[in-house]
């Protein structure tokens, strides 16, 4: 009976990957209808890159993801350090708020931020998207960094303090190098979450700053668009490279 669990695993993996394989194969399909095979072709990649609005949305998304990941890594790392090192009033409340962000349905976060931005009179666009994306990436960075700090020898920062280092110097020379791999992993997680987000972005983006997921969303709601196959394949390759890179960093740091 040893083959049974393995066959089952293989079957579920097959189901998980069939849609992705179909997508990749059909991105090279010459046929216009999108359902039957019409020979190999790169025409959808071509039409993708000739679509000016699409390329603009791609750059917008990349820039948003880069900045959102960077800001959330900075704030997330500081939050994790504060939670790990400092004793302060309301620590539980802080922890609780992070937990709420992570667990609450995305759509709840989305409408709450929309309400805030409209109340403040903030024009919906890059800034509102950035604030929102940093907020939903934050808890994931905090958790990644906290996990790294959990296995950390507490005598190192104490030694640094005894040798006369200030809090800032100690953080810079002792703690930051230790949490570096977690920072990079957290950054990449944030980058991917930002690139993938549809729910929150639908609410807090405006016409002045169109991003990729929303562009895809408006395309796939009606009918089939073969360009989406090509775009999906590119995104897949991109996230695979990112994922392997982050695995490589984490496994290297463990040795």
């Amino acid at each position, binding site marked *: 009976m040893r083959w049974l*669990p*393995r066959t*089952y*695993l293989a079957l*579920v993996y097959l189901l*998980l*990957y069939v*849609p*992705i394989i*179909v*997508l990749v194969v059909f991105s090279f399909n010459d046929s216009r*209808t*999108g*359902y039957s095979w019409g020979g190999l072709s790169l025409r959808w990649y071509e039409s993708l890159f000739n679509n000016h609005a699409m390329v603009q949305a791609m750059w917008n998304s990349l820039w948003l993801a880069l900045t959102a990941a960077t800001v959330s890594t900075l*704030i997330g790392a*500081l939050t994790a*350090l*504060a939670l790990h090192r*400092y004793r302060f009033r*309301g620590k539980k409340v*802080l922890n609780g*708020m*992070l937990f*709420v962000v992570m*667990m*609450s*349905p*995305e*759509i*709840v976060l989305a*409408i*709450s931020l*929309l*309400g*805030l931005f409209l109340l403040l009179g903030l024009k919906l666009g890059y800034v509102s998207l950035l604030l929102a994306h*940093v*907020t939903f990436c*934050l808890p994931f960075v905090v958790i990644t960094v906290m996990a790294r700090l959990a296995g950390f020898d507490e005598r190192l920062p104490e030694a640094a303090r005894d040798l006369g280092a*200030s*809090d800032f110097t100690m*953080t810079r020379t002792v703690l930051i190098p230790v949490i570096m791999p977690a920072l990079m992993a957290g950054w990449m997680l944030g980058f*991917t979450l930002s*690139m*993938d987000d*549809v*729910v929150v972005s639908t*609410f807090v983006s405006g016409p002045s700053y169109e991003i990729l*997921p929303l562009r*895809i*969303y408006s395309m*796939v*709601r009606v009918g*089939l668009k073969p360009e989406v196959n090509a*775009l*999906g394949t590119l*995104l*897949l390759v991109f996230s*695979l490279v990112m*994922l392997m890179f982050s*695995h490589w960093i984490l496994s290297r740091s463990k040795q």
Partner: protein
Amino acid sequence: MMLSIRQQPFRAAVLVLVWGWLLFLVLAPNLLVVGTSVMTRNPGTFISMPLNLDAYRQLFNPLYLEVFIHSLYMAAMTTLVCLLIGYPFAWALSRVEKRRQMLLIFLLIVPFWTNSLVRTYALKLILATNGLLNQGLMSLGIIDEPAQLLYTEGAVIVGLVYLLLPFMILPLYSVFDDLRQDVLLASHDLGAGRFATFKNVIVPLTLPGVLAGVMLVLLPAMGLFFVPDILGGSRNLLVGNVIKNQFLDARNWPFGAAASIMLTVAMALLMFAHRLSKRRLGEEGA
């Protein structure tokens, strides 16, 4: 020992930044939602005085109640299917050699790192009337004419399962990974059969994982409005579609806010159940 700001400027700066961000972008917006839900709808300014509970009353309007119940049904089915697929999957995964497990988990999260809209769209290629599944079934002679697969309740459930399955599997895998073989052996030595061991040992020990998985699947399954938009047609809406509609199209903010508070309350209840199950397990173990 409390140190003053002057003695620890770095600490003070960090705490101000972190607290500021969370109070401003988490606490304040959430309080705003609560406030919005008890105000009056206003087409011009979105909301206005006076305060009332109309929005909550509207939740029980038969028209919306039907949508909510249908959404809950689809989310529950999604959760059930995820559990039925995920439970044996996590079990089997935890029994594979450790070295291979890492690779298999990697393969499990690769789709999760791929754009979820694109993956939902890929399902459309397969489920469409002249899509691959219908073509395959027809060429095998199982059906004579294409079946309506897209724009059905089933299509929405398939889409949700596809997107959310890893969130069920990962917490289950973590409890199965902690499940020690000697506990199972002990049960066997005490004369329990396979079924008795499953019922009395494995199920209680993996229950927190089940509840964590349910928590991570059930609520998102009510909020992912783009899945019905792409796969479900206009009759298979989720609570998320209703909320989005109220905020972006119908402009009834109090009602949208009340519906989202309903989701938050449901989440809090599930989290409470999860905690309770963990605590009970802890007491029994001690």
